[in-house]
């Protein structure tokens, strides 16, 4: 690791939550795609439409899962930073108390 380290609780409180919000949007998109009305298309295009929609649902689903992973990881990162900060504070307080 090089350079400075700065950390604010926004990583956990804002960044992770925003990724969660994106995951929710993508879940809504999956639903939108699964209910896209193909009834007006001619029979010759129905198969292509099904394949097309299935791929886009998978795309939305993968993006949603990735967003959830980002949200979880950032939350855990935030917790880890804060735990580390608390642990160091505790140990230094202990050292100070022993002096």
């Amino acid at each position, binding site marked *: 690791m090089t350079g400075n380290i700065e950390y*604010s609780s926004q990583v956990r409180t804002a960044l992770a939550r925003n990724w969660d919000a994106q995951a929710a949007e993508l879940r809504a*998109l999956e639903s939108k795609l699964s209910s896209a*009305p*193909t009834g*007006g*298309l001619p029979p010759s295009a129905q198969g292509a*439409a099904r394949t097309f929609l299935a791929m886009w649902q998978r795309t939305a689903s993968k993006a949603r899962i990735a967003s959830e992973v980002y949200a979880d990881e950032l939350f855990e990162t935030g917790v880890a930073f804060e735990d580390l900060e608390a642990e160091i504070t505790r140990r230094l307080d202990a050292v100070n108390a022993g002096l």
Partner: protein
Amino acid sequence: MKTTINIPDLLDEAPAPEGEAEGAESFATSLIKSASSLIGFVEEIAILTRTDDYWVGGAADSYTSHARRFAREHEEHGPTLKRVANGVDVFAEQLRTLMRAHGALNDDIAAYNNACYELLRNVRQADDTQATVMRGRADSLAARRTVLVSETADLQRRVTENEQLLIELLESADTNAEAAAKTGGISSLALAAIDGMPAASEGPEAMASWWSGLSEAEQDALIAAYPGRLGSADGLPARVRNESNRLLLDTDLAELGEKEARGILAPEERKQLENARATAEALKLADDYKMPGTEEQPGGLLWLYDPTAYGGDGRVAVAIGDLDTAEDVSIQVPGIRTTMKDVAGYTQQAADLYESARFNGDGSGVATMFWLGYDTPNTNPFDDLWGTLGEGRAKEGGELLADAVSGLRASRPDDRAHLSVIGHSYGSTTTSYAATSFDLQADDVALLGSPGAGPADHASDFSVGADHVYDGRNSRDAVAFLGDEGWARKDWVEAGLGVDPSSRDFDAKRFEAESVERGDSRNFDDHGRYYDRNSESLYNLGRIVDGQTDDINRADHSYDPWWRAAVDPEKDRVPSSGVPGKSLTGSEGEG
């Protein structure tokens, strides 16, 4: 003696195109909304990768690097889905056209079958003396049958091509790699054809020639894939521009509406959305417009649509009637402080002009278009006409106007329309520049409430020739008073924009344009009354648009004797409203 008459076989109905246009449009709308979600998603991720203010270090670097790559991988997904949605919309529109063609063809087939039955009945009752006539009728029916069989096959081919285009579009974006590619959702037909598109600098004739050499399937594929490039391409048929611009409009409404609902609309996007909504309102007015007192519904066209132009003031042109086929076409050019948000009100003026031209016309087809294709000055007329307005925007606009008219001309190389350009207020100065400095390809030009004719000192300076320059000035119009009359040069005090085109010196054909509502003295309200229904001005404009220019009601020029202030002979004439042959522009009591 036995005589044989070979009556041709009956024909089966042509098979109907499969699918349903409205249903396909619903599918397209659903895809557009999905595309908007994906575009919004990528924009949000871009924000979520900027952590400098609250998180710095190796872990932060690792996160931002990964998240940026993730964003890049998804960057093209929204645009790809949007292109497919556009393609489905084009499919739906073409399906509608094919359905209409199918209905008409089946009517013809039914008429043919009835004619066969009738001939059979007549043959059974005929004697030998009528054999020649009967054979002639049978031969005629056989020829008709050949045409109908060919038309049925042609319709079937078009139906198949339309379906193939749809399938190809769906298949061009059904893998991860295609979804992420810049060419995802573009059919191979469009990809091949777009390479031949000439640059605008090659002129509108080159554009028209390129387009007319494409197959119907290639044209549809291009509209679906490149509406932004086709919507404002001078030289293309108005139908093509209209279809392209409507796709852009629908996309803006869906995409920006979605962002608004999610609370993530940026300020410049807010302007864009307002412009889109104003255009949608104007287009609805144009599409729904039914000429008062008649069943005539000419339909609307979106000829130009660019809601982000000129810092959000926008560029737009909406027409009433068919610009591709109308015998008489007009273009209305607005003046200062006109922006895209005003388009509905000006479209109503175009509708009222359409009515006037048709109501008092000779029966020829008419199309009237409001054109806001230049950057109008935003200055306040009450503050600035006496100083800082200037002619720069008029000159720039004049060139754009001349280009637009050349584009319309080129789009109809073998079917030249009678074309009039009407400039109001500062738009009259813009029109003067187009006609004086940029060889405006119009037949007639009318200037309304003009603050000055810009670079022209005399009507003969115009490209249309002095006999085709008309001027309407309400004697109470405070803006029209600003032009130079006779010896009084207002540029001496840095006011006005050139010679007053209603003046004797300019020598245009001045027509009556007084309003029954005119004020007692010069005012700004009278500057806005030239398109009032059942007014003298709108009556005369309708005559000009319809090409009946010998039958306008002429007014005497204003003039400026050296011993006193300028004189307007119209000042003391009693104006009329709704008088046949003078100021009646439509069915009374309606509109």
